[in-house]
């Protein structure tokens, strides 16, 4: 019912305007797409395409949803169960994200302009197209099914206007009368624990704002890993912090070398975005983001450790190396 109301509202908004101006409630389109995906019953195949350097990669993934259960089939099945997120490993469902944890995405209107227009027919469905613009550039384009509000395709553009990555339905069957899917009877938990940002100690830090308008939306800890989640309303970024030093040969193969402040780092591409890995001081940082790469670089420059090791730290390391050399000689 909520989906229908939202879709009706969208239809009213765009009626009579082929390319509308900035819509006051375009924010609700994304919210509506999320609630639609959680409430609708459908099945289909997704095309996931991304550029990795000069290579374009592509994968397909089967997905089905029914009344609050969203299941991705593949080598490692994932499930969205209402607000919880689970992964199936070793023949058991593990809770990666408990339903009780919340993130509060900031308003994207401060940074982005959103324009909505009537879109092309996709897989037999009428669509609305939402362009998310930053300055004179379209950063993201969303194709939303008009009646149910389901997000059919999402494209992210690079700084030259080319498609950097996309996720979209290749096949889709919407079936409102589909029977409910089985819910996991028992689960184990690998879930994170929420941490108050101000209570981090030692080498960990969680600035409230990062880079160009990325606001902290949550701080979590699991074992020795602290995850600080940021969002600018459209994109998300996780800064993972681990106390220690980057072990020799610890960086995965295939990374492109980058400089992060005074430190050497590596950049990788994953189907949903970018990864940057580096060590600064006593902390190893891994930033995972679905944001454009220039946003990622801008954000990591404001991470505390990105200025590189301090003079005192380098001096201590030098002393340690000196003593180590004598120890080795014995």
């Amino acid at each position, binding site marked *: 019912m909520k989906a229908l109301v939202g879709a009706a509202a969208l239809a009213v908004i765009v009626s009579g305007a082929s390319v509308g101006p900035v819509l006051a409630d375009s924010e609700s389109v994304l919210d509506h797409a*999320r609630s639609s*995906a*959680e409430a609708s019953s459908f099945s289909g195949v997704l095309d*996931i395409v991304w550029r990795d350097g000069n290579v374009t990669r592509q994968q397909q993934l089967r*997905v089905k949803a029914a009344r609050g259960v969203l299941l991705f089939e593949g080598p490692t099945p994932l499930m969205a169960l209402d607000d919880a997120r689970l992964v199936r490993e070793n023949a058991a469902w593990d809770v990666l994200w408990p339903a009780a944890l919340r993130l*509060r995405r900031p308003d994207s209107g401060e940074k982005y302009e959103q324009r909505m227009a009537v879109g092309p027919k996709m897989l037999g469905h009428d669509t609305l197209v939402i362009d998310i613009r930053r300055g004179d550039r379209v950063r993201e384009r969303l194709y939303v099914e008009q009646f149910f509000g389901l*997000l059919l395709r999402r494209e992210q553009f690079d700084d030259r206007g080319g498609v950097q990555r996309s996720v979209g339905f290749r096949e889709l069957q919407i079936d409102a009368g589909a029977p409910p899917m089985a819910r996991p009877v028992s689960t184990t938990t690998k879930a994170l624990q929420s941490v108050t940002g101000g209570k981090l100690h030692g080498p960990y830090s969680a600035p409230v704002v990062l880079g160009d308008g990325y606001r902290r939306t949550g701080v979590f800890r699991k074992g020795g890993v602290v*995850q600080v989640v940021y969002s600018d309303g459209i994109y998300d970024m996780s800064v993972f912090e681990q106390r220690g030093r980057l072990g020799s040969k610890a960086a995965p193969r295939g990374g492109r070398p980058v400089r992060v402040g005074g430190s050497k780092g590596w950049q990788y591409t994953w189907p949903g*975005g970018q990864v940057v890995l580096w060590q600064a001081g006593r902390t*190893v940082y891994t930033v995972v983001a679905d944001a454009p790469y220039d946003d990622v670089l801008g954000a990591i420059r404001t991470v505390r450790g990105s200025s590189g090791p301090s003079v005192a730290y380098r001096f201590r390391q030098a002393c340690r190396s000196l003593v180590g050399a004598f120890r080795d000689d014995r």
Partner: protein
Amino acid sequence: MSAPGGPPVGTSGPGGPNHAGDHAGDLLSALLDAQLAPADELVVRTHVAGCPACATELGAVELARSRVRALRGLDPPFGFYQRLLATPRRRRWAAASLAAAAAASVAFVGVLPAREAPVHPAVATLIRTHAVAASVDGDPVSQLATAGVPVSFRP
């Protein structure tokens, strides 16, 4: 062992002058300085008398000795002895400073916590963790799908 052209250079007994070679060698200088025991002096002189090589060397050593002795004496420049005496003190200070710096460094290292443990970030797991978090407040289909694609990040 015998020296060509002369009797072997012998010794006067245990602890006395002994030359393992065929000629008198260093014993010539000791002979000129009157540092040989009478018995050894007799042996060396007997050898030199029968050995032209040692006789020639004895003459050369004696000539050099007399020329060195004939050199005029020189006074050292002003302050030479003071500087000579002061140098060890400066060296002692430098050595003390170096030792203190080394001790301070060792102490500095000693009070530090142990060297940080190596970390090997599980990049694939971190990616999935991020995608899961992003899907909670974003579109679950497009956000979670990227986490479902198998990727390999191995050292």
